[in-house]
Structures are given as structure tokens and as C-alpha cells.
């Protein structure tokens, strides 16, 4: 897009003076101005709402801004009503990489613990999303009685807004009267205090998110399967391929591009999935099930609002995701996928 901003100069210059063929930029402008005009509104919105905040976020992560030191001046009102203002001696300031050093060395917050939880959370959720989604899609892809009904029922969880699902599952995992414990008791198993142990607490959140995310994978993979030509299966069958061989050698390769997209999207979405952890486990017990995103949020908006610390987490989260995506793309490209 850099070319857009560079445009006005050659356009306004007297073009008649040069009889030589117009510059490359000029030709490009004549040919593409309407395309650029069409993307301009979005470029402006992205610049103002995403890139400016992004750079500001990076900048904030290099300061020590908190709620306590955010004002530049401290004003005190005297008893007569006049106001006296003087410079805040503890004003926020540029601190360089201090935040990163503190966070990464573990002096402040629990970055590494949260990262570990986030990884378990992401991998757990995505593996089950994809596995269950693929299994259900394979089953639903066969001609059979009641397929449409199954499909509608299985898609239902997706229709529920995430925060409602979070509440529904928190209700189910309630220690005293939740459905989960009632079922366990009726099976003769002791009820579990779900939210007082790190792993059972994380388990509730992962179950909630799996429940919520499988329908998307299922529908996406089902859509992908329906683009695989039926003749391939017929030919394989004539050659005597077993169902497993057909699945391995036709279905999976045919789903490659859809799979790669949904796994990447699913990973990014799950990594940043805020409402489930925030509402289901609420970090219980004692912040041990916090993921990076909820941890960053709590740093910014709970207790003393540490804006700079939250920005530092934000930058670190983004870096992790960027590294992951670049790596992911590189692996794909090595395997010959043009994308």
C-alpha cells in the first residue's frame, strides 16, 4: 500500500513536459486507481483502529504506565475552591525493555505458567476440535437415514453465543447442584470440587470450548469432503481399497487445504479465546488456570490497572502467534502447498 501515499506527487506534476513514456508509478496509478480507491476506506479504518493502537501498544509496553501514574499533573482543590496544579513527580516514563525483562524473567506476573496453561489449553482444544470434527464429518458424509437431523443437532452448540455456553457449563460444573456432579453421584462416584483444583478447573474450560468448537470443524470438513469427486472413491473401490485406505489416501489428502486453514484459524482463535476461561474458571483456583489473554486483561483492568504490563503481555502473545504462523506457512510451503 505504500504506493498509494506516494501517488499524488507524480499525478500533480505537469505530465506534458516529459514526452518520455510516463513513469511506472504513473501508469500503475492510471491502471489501478479505482482498486485503490475501493480499498481506501478499509485501509484507513485498519490504520486508525488497528495499526495505530498496535504501535501505541508496543510503545506502552516500553513505559511504566499504570492507572496510578497516568496523569501528567496533580491538581489539588483548596478550601476556597481554587485549583492548584503541579507536575506529577511520579509521572509514567519510558523504561525501555524493563517490562520484558521482568515478565520473561518471572519477576512480575506468571508469564511462563500462563504460557504453559495456554499451550495445554490450545493444543487440547484444537486436537479434540479437529479429531471429533473429522470423525463426525466422516460419519455424516455417508448416505443414511436421518442425516439432516443429525447435522442440525450437532451444529446447535455453535449457535449458542460463547458467553452463554460458558455460563451453561459453569452451571453444569457447579459443585453443589451441577449436572456433572449429579451424574457422578448417581454413578456412585464422589462429586468433584471442579474449580478448586488446577487440572479439573482447566478440564471444565477445555470441555466447554471443545463442545463449542467442534461444530465449526465438522461443518468445514464436511464442506471440504463434498468437494472430493466421487469417482475417486469408485475407482478406489474397484481397485479393492479398504474403507481405511480410502480415508487415508483420498479423504485426508482431499481435505488438506481446508484442514490447514481451519487448524490455523482454530489455533489462533483458541489461543486468544477469552470468554471461556474468563467466565468458566475465572482463573480459579488462585489464578492457576489463567491463559495469557485473560492474564493480560486482568493486569490491565483489575486491581491497580497496569496498562504497560498488559501491553507487554499483548506484544508477547502477538509474537508467539506470528512465529507460529510463519513456521506453519513455511512447513506448508515445503510440502508444496501454495498458499
Amino acid at each position, binding site marked *: 500500500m505504500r504506493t498509494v501515499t506516494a501517488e499524488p506527487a507524480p499525478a500533480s506534476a505537469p505530465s506534458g513536459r516529459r514526452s518520455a513514456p510516463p513513469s511506472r508509478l504513473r501508469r500503475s496509478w492510471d491502471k489501478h486507481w479505482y482498486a485503490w480507491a475501493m480499498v481506501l476506506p478499509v485501509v484507513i479504518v485498519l490504520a486508525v483502529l488497528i495499526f495505530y493502537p498496535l504501535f501505541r501498544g508496543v510503545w506502552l509496553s516500553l513505559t511504566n504506565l499504570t492507572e496510578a501514574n497516568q496523569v501528567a499533573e496533580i491538581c489539588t482543590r483548596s478550601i476556597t475552591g481554587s485549583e492548584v496544579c503541579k507536575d506529577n513527580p511520579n509521572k509514567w516514563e519510558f523504561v525501555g525493555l524493563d517490562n520484558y525483562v521482568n515478565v520473561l524473567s518471572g519477576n512480575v506476573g506468571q508469564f511462563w505458567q500462563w504460557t504453559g496453561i495456554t499451550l495445554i489449553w490450545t493444543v487440547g482444544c484444537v486436537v479434540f476440535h479437529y479429531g471429533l470434527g473429522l470423525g*463426525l464429518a466422516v*460419519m455424516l458424509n455417508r448416505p443414511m437415514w436421518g442425516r439432516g437431523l443429525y447435522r442440525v*443437532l450437532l451444529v446447535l452448540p455453535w449457535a449458542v453465543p460463547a458467553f452463554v455456553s460458558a455460563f451453561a457449563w459453569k452451571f453444569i460444573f457447579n459443585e453443589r447442584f451441577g449436572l456433572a456432579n449429579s451424574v457422578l453421584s448417581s454413578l456412585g462416584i464422589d462429586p468433584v470440587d471442579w474449580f478448586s483444583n488446577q487440572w479439573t478447573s482447566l478440564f471444565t474450560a477445555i470441555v466447554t470450548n471443545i463442545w463449542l468448537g467442534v461444530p465449526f470443524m465438522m461443518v468445514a470438513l464436511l464442506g471440504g469432503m463434498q468437494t472430493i469427486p466421487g469417482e475417486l472413491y469408485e475407482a478406489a473401490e474397484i481397485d479393492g481399497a479398504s474403507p481405511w485406505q480410502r480415508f487415508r489416501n483420498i479423504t485426508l489428502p482431499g481435505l488438506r487445504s481446508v484442514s490447514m486453514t481451519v487448524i490455523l484459524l482454530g489455533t489462533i482463535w483458541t489461543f486468544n479465546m477469552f470468554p471461556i476461561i474468563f467466565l468458566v474458571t475465572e482463573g480459579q483456583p488462585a489464578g492457576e488456570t489463567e491463559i495469557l489473554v485473560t492474564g493480560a486483561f486482568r493486569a490491565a483492568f483489575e486491581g491497580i490497572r497496569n496498562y504497560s504490563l*498488559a501491553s507487554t*503481555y499483548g506484544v508477547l502473545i502477538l509474537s508467539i502467534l506470528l512465529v507460529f504462523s510463519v513456521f506453519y506457512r513455511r512447513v506448508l510451503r515445503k510440502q508444496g502447498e501454495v498458499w
Partner: protein
Amino acid sequence: MTQLTTPAAATPAAAAHTRSPGRPGRTRRSPAKSLLLHGTLILASLIAIGPIAWVLLSSFKPGYAVQSSDLTLVKEPTLANYSYVLFDTNFPKWLLNSVIVAAFTMLIGIFLSATTGYAVSRFNFPGRRSLMLVFLVTQMFPAAILIVPIYTIMARLGLINTLPALIIAYLTIAVPFCAWMLKGYFDSIPTSLDEAAALDGCGPFAIFWKVVLPLARPAIAVTAFYTFLTAWGEVMYASAFIQTDNKFTLAYGLQQFVPQFNPQWEYLTAAAVLVTVPAGLVFMFAQRHLVSGLTAGGTKG
């Protein structure tokens, strides 16, 4: 892979219905296999609808029955929870706030991104690939990094605790997503139509407005609904930007029913049902087209 995904993108609804007719041997299954298949699917369906059904059932129970440990499906059904939520709380106000925020996010988001989706789909202009990449990368931006700067900007503009703050924040989610989705759909509209219109003397804007946009109406509807639902269900910005009870959206307002002490689950369940039913209906209409658009956008650079 492009040619494989194109049919689904072009006729998403049709593709979902038509199976390649008669795969030999597949229709005849042994009874045991059939039982296993249906058994698994029934179990999965039960798991899928179970929590929804349980919340729905609980919403009709009086408070003491909801908060009791014995397991009953129905107990003294009553509509008291619903009437309390609708008439004695700020729920209607939250609903209105959610509708306003979601509707404006949707309208502005679609309005801004339709032209971009078209340009990226049709014209091979310098900067096109990087723009596509930007759309993808912005999906990666955690709200955690944007939320603080946007919060400070809003604070400076005096917009904290107002609905416009939420609308602006949600545009950061909606715009790249809408542009990405619409690009995928525009790709599935044959370019020969554009060329025919160009021969008839239409300029690029006229082609977009008169030819492509009407054809893409279903796609725009679906994208609109999805944006609406995203804004409807967003929790993080709503928790951070809104401070007073009468400005809450549903996503944040519902938390009021279940505070740390004395949570009132019976009201929460009723409110949850009230929130889910309209969203669910909208969703069921949109979902089929949604995935094909999303994955089509994803698989075609």
C-alpha cells in the same frame, strides 16, 4: 486446491445437499455397523444438545429447585424466572444496548468492507497480496494488545462507558473479517459477468454496484449476520469499557446474575435462553453459507 474448493464456494447450499449419487457398496451396511454409526451419532447429538436442554429445563424451575442437588428434569414448571428477568431487571435495557451495538457494527463493517472485498477479489493491483496478508494477520492480534491503547484513546475522547466505544472496538474485529469473507464470495461470482458489463460501458464502480453487489446479496446477508453475532457475544471489550448498569450489553450484563456470592442461577438460565433463541435462529440461517465463505477465503490467496 483452488479448483477443488470452487464448486463448494459457488453453490454452498447446493453442495451441502447433493451427494455424488450411488457410491457402490456404501449404502448397504451390515446391521452391526449401522447400529454403531447411529449409536455414535445419537450419543454425539445428545452431548451437543444436552447442556442447552438442561439450561432450558432449569429456566422453568423455581430457584430452590435449580439450586438443589437432586436430579429432576422438571419440577413445578413456572415462568417466574422469565418474568423477573424481563420486568424486574435491566435485562431489556441490556438487550437494547446489544442490539444497537451489534447493528451498528454490522452496518458500518459491511459498508466499509464490501468494496475492499471486491477490489481484492477482482483487481490484481500492487499491494493486493499484502492487504490480504494484513487481513489474515489482524485475525491474530489478540484483543489483549489492542484493548489498552483503544481504551486510552476512548478515554481521551470521553467515550468510556458509551456504546460508540464498543462499536468502534468491534470494528477492529469486523472489518478485516468481513473483507476476507466477502472476498471469498466475490471470487465465486464469474468474472465473465463483469466483462459483459464492461463491454456495455460500465465503469468499475458501476459494475460493482449494479452487477456484483446484487449477486452477492446472500453473502452480504450472511456476513452481516455473523458480524452481528460476533458483536452480540463479545465479552472482553464490554467488560473493560462499560461501567454502569444501564450501559451493559448482554454479554456483560448476564454476569450480574451470578456474582461470587449469592449467584442466582435460575435467573441466569432464563436470561440465557432469552439471549440464545434469537441468536440461534439467526445463526441457523447463516451457518451453512458461513463456512464455505470462510474456507474459500482461506484457501485462495
